[in-house]
């Protein structure tokens, strides 16, 4: 009789295993970039409004900043745009736009229509700097501290919850930079 319960026991074990492992699959998908905790890659790119000005991530050393990957072709960037504007106004740190694989004309038109709260933009037309940043898609938002270490990366659009979380992290970084 007890022997007949063995397959049942194995079955229940399986069920338990699946109950434990399946919900965490979603978390695993959200795995962070290997770049988090490392220094932000150094690259120099032209500006968007000012194509003649070359800007480098190294110029920002010494202060925390936000880097937001966007493109005029990216609908989700339009969705998150109100929150990006708020970050630009309220975060108190530079908000760098990383204009990824875009056309200058379309990008400028997009900014004209929706608003430009970024401190400045860097244009990566060929997408090579994006590879160094480990960009998967747009939008993505990076938090870099005053030592140039990438502290956090958010994949996907910013909403109210993400905005609050980002603001909290930025405050932390600002406190660190100040002390």
């Amino acid at each position: 009789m007890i022997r007949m319960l063995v397959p049942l026991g194995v079955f229940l074990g399986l069920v338990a295993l699946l109950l434990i492992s399946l919900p965490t699959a979603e978390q695993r998908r959200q795995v962070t970039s290997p770049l988090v905790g490392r220094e932000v890659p150094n690259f120099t790119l032209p500006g968007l409004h000012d194509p003649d000005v070359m800007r480098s991530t190294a110029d920002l050393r010494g202060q925390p900043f936000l880097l937001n990957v966007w493109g005029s072709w990216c609908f989700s960037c339009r969705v998150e745009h109100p929150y990006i504007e708020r970050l630009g106004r309220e975060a108190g740190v530079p908000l760098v736009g990383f204009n990824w694989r875009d056309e200058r004309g379309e990008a400028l038109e997009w900014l004209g229509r929706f608003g430009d709260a970024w401190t400045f933009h860097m244009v990566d037309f060929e997408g090579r700097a994006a590879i160094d940043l480990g960009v998967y898609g747009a939008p993505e938002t990076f938090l870099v501290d005053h030592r140039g270490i990438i502290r956090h990366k958010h994949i996907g659009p910013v909403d109210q919850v993400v905005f609050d979380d980002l603001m909290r992290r930025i405050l932390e970084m600002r406190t660190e930079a100040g002390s």
Partner: protein
Amino acid sequence: MKLFPFAGPALGAAGLALSLLLSAPIGAQSEAPASEPPGQEQPGATRPIEQGRMGGMISPIEPLPFRSELERRRFKALTNELRCTVCQNESLSESTAPLARDLRMEVFGMLQDNRSDMEIRQFMVDRYGDFVLYRPPLAGHTVLLWGGPLLLLIGGLISAVVVIKKRRQAL
């Protein structure tokens, strides 16, 4: 020793359970950021055809100006074992995603710069994590992944021997 009537199915089920348990680290490897996260987008279809560094469109079938047959083979091997980071289970060589195209060009450029296969793989891992490798490295968290099949084989052989011996005795 008496014949254990449920030995076969029970061992089979145990094997299945074990393999599922072992697949946990596999899942961690392969599922990482497998799909595009909700709301994220790829540059792409509506845009004009991108000009690669070689001045032409880079697609899986596009012939690249390799310097030798060996280089062409290395390119093929590398792009076959590197995962396209934005697609579901496609290698870099198969994918038509713009990012995959960029990454193929990056691999091609590194080959032109005489970088080793190791260096090229490391370049990708530094940016996208172990997830880009179809063959993850042997490390602490992947020991079960690599050793699991061997464990299952040994377990299966042992149970087969035990079952066969019991049946012999029962005859």
